[in-house]
C-alpha cells in the first residue's frame, strides 16, 4: 500500500475523516474517468492541489538536470508547499496559498524574493481543463511504473503547430502526475520531470514548513518594482495563434535605465508566452533577431519606435505569430 499514514495522527478523528473524504472523491473520479477520458486530466489537476504528498523528483530542462524535494500539504482550507533544490546552489521556495517566497542563501546573506507561483510540477495542469481541451487531443498509452507506482500514460497531442506535445504519467490509483515530458515536433525532450519517490501523508503537522537556512545570516528583502494591472489600449492585438488567450496585462519598470514596459501574458492553459512592448528611449540601442535560451524562444523587433519582444517556452512559429499579432502601437 502506497499510502503512508503517519501513526501519530491516526487518533485524529477529523484528519481521518478528511483523508477518507479525499480518497472517496478520487475513487469516484476514477469511475467517471471511464466515461470521459478528460476526467483523467481533471483528476490529475485536482490531485496535485488537494492531496498531501512528499517526494523527490528529477527536473530536466535542456542540458540542465537537478533533483528537487517537494512537500505539499492541503489541510482542507489552504495549501502549503516547500520546494527545495537539492543540487547546485541552495535555494528553496515556501508557499502558502498564492503567497510564494523564495529563499536564496549565499555566502553573506539570504535574499528573500516574493514570487508568483502556479502550475509547478506536479500541478502543471490548470483547474479548468476546458481551455486545454480546445487545443490538444487526448489519447491513452501504455502502463509504466514510475517511482514504484503504476502509471497510465496519457498523450496530449497539439491540434496545430503552435504548441508542443505533452506526455504524462498519471498514478493509476490517485491520479497524481508522476512524470511529465514536453517534446518538440521531432520527439526530442524539451523539458522533463519525474518522481523518483513519492508518498502521501495525512498529518497536518507544519514542522517542516520552514526554510533550512543559517539564521545568523543577514536577510535582504528583494523590494523590486511592482507590476500594475493595465487596461490601457497601448496596442491593437489580433490574430493570436489559435487557443492562446490574454491572461494578464501589466505595466512595470524594467532595465538599467528604468522605463515603463507593457507585458501581456498569453496562454493556452499549458504553455505561456510573454509579449513586451516599450518605447525605445532616445540614444538606446534597439534589439532585433531571434534566439533560444534553454527551452525559451525569444524574438525581438522594432515597430513605430517601440521595442517588441516575445518570450516563451513554445515553438518559434508561435513566438513569430504573437509578434505579428500587433496591428498597431502608439508611435514614439
Amino acid at each position, binding site marked *: 500500500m502506497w499510502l503512508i499514514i503517519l501513526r501519530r495522527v491516526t487518533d485524529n478523528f477529523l484528519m481521518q475523516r478528511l483523508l477518507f473524504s479525499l480518497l472517496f472523491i478520487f475513487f469516484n473520479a476514477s469511475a467517471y474517468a471511464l466515461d470521459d477520458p478528460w476526467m483523467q486530466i481533471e483528476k490529475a489537476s485536482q490531485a496535485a492541489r488537494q492531496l498531501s504528498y512528499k517526494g523527490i523528483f528529477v527536473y530536466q530542462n535542456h542540458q540542465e538536470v537537478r533533483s528537487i524535494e517537494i512537500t505539499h500539504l492541503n489541510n482542507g482550507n489552504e495549501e502549503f508547499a516547500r520546494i527545495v533544490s537539492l543540487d547546485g546552489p541552495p535555494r528553496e521556495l515556501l508557499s502558502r496559498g498564492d503567497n510564494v517566497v523564495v529563499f536564496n542563501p549565499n555566502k553573506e546573506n539570504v535574499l528573500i*524574493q516574493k514570487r508568483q*507561483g502556479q*502550475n*509547478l510540477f506536479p500541478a502543471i495542469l490548470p483547474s479548468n481543463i476546458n481551455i486545454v481541451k480546445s487545443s490538444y487531443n487526448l489519447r491513452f498509452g501504455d502502463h509504466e511504473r514510475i517511482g514504484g507506482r503504476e502509471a497510465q500514460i496519457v498523450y496530449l497531442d497539439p491540434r496545430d503547430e503552435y504548441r508542443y506535445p505533452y506526455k504524462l504519467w498519471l498514478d493509476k490509483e490517485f491520479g497524481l502526475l508522476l512524470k511529465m515530458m514536453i517534446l518538440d515536433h521531432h520527439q526530442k525532450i524539451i523539458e522533463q520531470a519525474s518522481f523518483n519517490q513519492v508518498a502521501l501523508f495525512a498529518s497536518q503537522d507544519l514542522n517542516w514548513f520552514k526554510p533550512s537556512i543559517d539564521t545568523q545570516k543577514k536577510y535582504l528583502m*528583494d523590494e523590486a518594482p511592482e*507590476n500594475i494591472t493595465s487596461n490601457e489600449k497601448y496596442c491593437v492585438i489580433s490574430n493570436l495563434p489559435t487557443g492562446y488567450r490574454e491572461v494578464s496585462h501589466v505595466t512595470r519598470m524594467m*532595465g538599467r535605465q528604468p522605463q515603463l514596459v507593457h507585458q501581456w501574458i498569453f496562454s493556452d492553459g499549458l504553455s505561456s*508566452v510573454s509579449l513586451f512592448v516599450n518605447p525605445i528611449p532616445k540614444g*538606446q540601442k534597439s534589439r532585433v533577431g531571434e534566439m533560444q535560451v534553454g527551452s525559451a524562444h525569444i524574438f525581438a523587433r522594432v515597430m513605430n519606435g517601440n521595442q517588441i519582444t516575445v518570450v516563451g517556452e513554445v515553438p518559434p512559429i508561435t513566438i513569430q505569430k504573437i509578434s505579428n499579432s500587433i496591428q498597431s502601437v502608439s508611435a514614439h
Partner: protein
Amino acid sequence: MKEKISTLLDDELDLKGTSQTVSEIIKDKRLRERFETYQLIRDSMKNELSDATFSSKSILDAIDKEPIQMQFNKTSKVASAMALPYPSWMSWPVAASFAAVLLIAALSMNHRYLKPSETVEIAEDVPADYIQAHQMLAPTNVAYYSETGNR
C-alpha cells in the same frame, strides 16, 4: 509602514497603533500583499504556524482579495545600452521610392550586414531581463527549477 507591519506581526504594537496599522493595510493593496509576505516569512522562519497565525490571516480574509502582484529580482545581467546618435535613416525623406524599395530588399537579403547601427542582435545582447520578467509573471517549472530562472 514596513516597520509598522513588522512590529504588528511581532505583536509589539499597542492597541491604538494596531488598529491604525490594520486599517491602513486594509486600504492599500500593496500593503496587504506586503503584510501577507512578511507574515509568511516570519511564520515559516520562526516555525510559528499556529492558531494565532490563522487569526491574523483572517484580518486579510475579510478583505476582498485581489491578484497577488509580483516583484522582481533587481540583479539583471543585461549589458547597459549604449548611447548612440539618433538613427539618421529614420529621418530620411522618402524622396525616391525606388531607393526605399532597394533598401528594404537589401535589408531582407542581408539583414546582418546592412542592419542600422542603432540596433543590436539579441544573440549579442541576450535580453535576460525580459526572460526573467516572463518567467516570473508566467511561472513555469523553468522559473524555479532551472538556472535560467535563477538569474
